[in-house]
C-alpha cells in the first residue's frame, strides 16, 4: 500500500525517510505534481513536509545578527513579505517573479533549490550571496556551500533519506538587484536572469547568472572590476566605460545554449543588458540606499 506521511516535525520527517529512504519528499508540490499529473512520475510513498513549522520560520544568527537562516519550507510568498524583503531584497524580488500568487503561496525555497533547474529563480541570488545549504537526515546534519549542492542540470547533492532544512545567507549592507528576462512579465520561466549584491563595508559586488549555464554562474572578472572601480562611499554612478566593461565581462561568464526559450546569442546579449541595468541601479548616486 502506498502511503503519504504528513510530517509535523523535522524528526518526524527524518524518521519516515529513515525507514523508507526511497520515499518522495513533497513540499509545495508545484514541481512534483506537474510531473505526477502528466504521468511522468509514478507516485510511491510520499513524505509531505509542508506542515512542519520548524521548516517554515526564519531567524537571524551570528554575533552581529548578520546571518539569515531561512527554513527550507519558506514559501515564495513569505520571501516577498516586507520583513524578509528588507533583509535580502534580491531574494524577495526573485521570489516575487516565480509563477503567480497561487504558485508563490505553495512554492518553497527548499523545493526551488532541490529541483536545481538552471532557470530556478532563487538560485542566482543564492549564488551571489554565497548561500549555505543545511541538510539533515537521521545520520546527522551537514552544511554545503551552494555550488557543492547544485551540481548539474536538475542534479543536487541530496542523498536518499536526506532533507534540506535551511538555507543561510548573509545580511549585507548595500543595494541588491534581481532581474529576469522572459517572454512576458508574469508567469514565466527565465530566459536569462541576473542577481547583483553589493557589500558596502566589504567594498565588493557579487554577480550571478541564471538560465545561461547548467548551474548558476558567478561573473568573477566583472566582480573584480566592480570592486576596483565602483564608488562604495558615495555610491555614484560608475563612468560609462566601467559600466560597458562590466557588461562585457558579465556576458563573458555566461555559457548559454540554444533551446526552445531562446538562442545562446540572445541570452548573452540579454545578460549584458541586465548587467548594465543592475550596476546602474545599484550605484545610482544615492548613498543613503544602504545606510
Amino acid at each position, binding site marked *: *500500500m*502506498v*502511503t*503519504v*506521511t*504528513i510530517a*509535523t516535525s523535522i524528526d518526524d520527517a527524518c524518521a519516515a525517510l529513515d525507514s523508507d529512504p526511497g520515499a518522495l519528499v*513533497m513540499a*509545495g*508540490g*508545484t514541481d*512534483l*505534481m*506537474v510531473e*505526477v*499529473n*502528466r504521468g511522468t512520475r*509514478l*507516485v*510511491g510513498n*510520499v513524505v*509531505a513536509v*509542508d506542515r512542519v513549522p520548524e521548516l517554515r520560520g526564519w531567524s537571524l544568527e551570528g554575533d552581529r545578527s548578520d546571518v539569515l537562516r531561512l527554513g527550507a519550507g519558506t514559501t515564495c*510568498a513569505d520571501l516577498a513579505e516586507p520583513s524578509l524583503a528588507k533583509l535580502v531584497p534580491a531574494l524577495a524580488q526573485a521570489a516575487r517573479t516565480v*509563477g*503567480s*500568487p*497561487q*504558485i508563490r*503561496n*505553495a512554492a518553497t525555497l527548499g523545493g526551488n533549490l532541490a529541483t536545481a533547474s538552471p532557470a530556478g529563480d532563487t538560485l542566482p541570488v543564492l549564488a551571489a550571496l554565497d548561500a549555505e545549504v543545511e541538510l539533515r537526515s537521521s545520520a546527522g546534519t551537514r552544511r554545503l556551500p551552494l555550488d557543492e549542492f547544485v551540481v548539474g542540470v536538475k542534479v543536487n547533492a541530496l542523498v536518499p533519506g536526506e532533507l534540506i532544512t535551511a538555507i543561510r545567507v548573509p545580511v549585507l549592507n548595500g543595494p541588491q538587484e534581481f532581474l529576469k528576462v522572459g517572454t512576458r512579465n*508574469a*508567469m514565466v520561466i527565465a530566459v536569462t536572469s541576473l542577481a547583483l549584491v553589493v557589500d558596502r563595508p566589504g567594498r565588493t559586488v557579487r554577480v550571478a547568472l541564471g538560465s545561461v549555464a547548467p548551474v548558476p554562474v558567478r561573473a568573477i572578472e566583472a566582480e573584480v572590476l566592480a570592486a576596483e572601480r565602483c564608488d562604495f562611499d558615495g555610491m555614484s554612478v560608475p563612468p560609462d566605460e566601467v559600466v560597458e566593461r562590466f557588461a562585457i565581462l558579465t556576458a563573458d561568464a555566461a555559457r548559454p545554449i540554444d533551446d526552445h526559450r531562446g538562442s545562446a546569442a540572445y541570452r548573452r546579449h540579454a545578460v549584458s543588458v541586465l548587467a548594465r541595468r543592475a550596476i546602474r541601479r545599484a550605484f545610482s548616486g544615492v548613498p543613503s540606499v544602504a545606510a
Partner: protein
Amino acid sequence: MTTSEDFSLVVNGSHRSVVDALPGESLLFVLRERLGLIGSKNACEEGECGSCTVRLDGETVCSCLVLAAAAADREVVTIEGLTSEEAVLSDVQQAFLDAGAVQCGFCTPGLLMAVDALLDADDEPDELTVREAISGNLCRCTGYGRILDAVDRAASARRSQVTP
C-alpha cells in the same frame, strides 16, 4: 499522520471522507470526481491557468498541484463555499455579472477565488495590484477589461459593506 487511499478532507466547513483514492490523485481530481464539486475547473493540470484555484488554509493555490492525501484535515474552500447560502451571490460574483466579465465562464470560478482573496487582503487595490493578483488566472475570452472593471466594482461593494 499517515494517510493512504482513505482519508478525510475539510471542504467548505464539512468533513468529507475519500475512499479508495489512487496514489497521486490531486485535490482537484478528488473535489471533482470523488466529491462531486465540479465548480473548480480542470484545464492545464500544471498550475498555469488558475481555473482550479481554491483556498487552502486561507491561501489561494492551484488545487491541481495539491496532493489530495497530503491535504487531509486542512481547510479547503472551493467556489461552492464562496457564499454561505447557495442562492445568494457574493459581492465578487455580483460584480462579475454586473460588469459583464463572464463570457464562456470557464475561468470564472478561479478568478472569483483569486479576486475574493485579493479583496480580503486589500479592498482598495490599485490596477497594478489587481493585475498581479489575477496574473495566475488565464481568460481567453474577455481580454481582461471587464474583469478589471468587475474587480473595481467588487472592491467598492466590499468597502461599503465594512462599516467605518
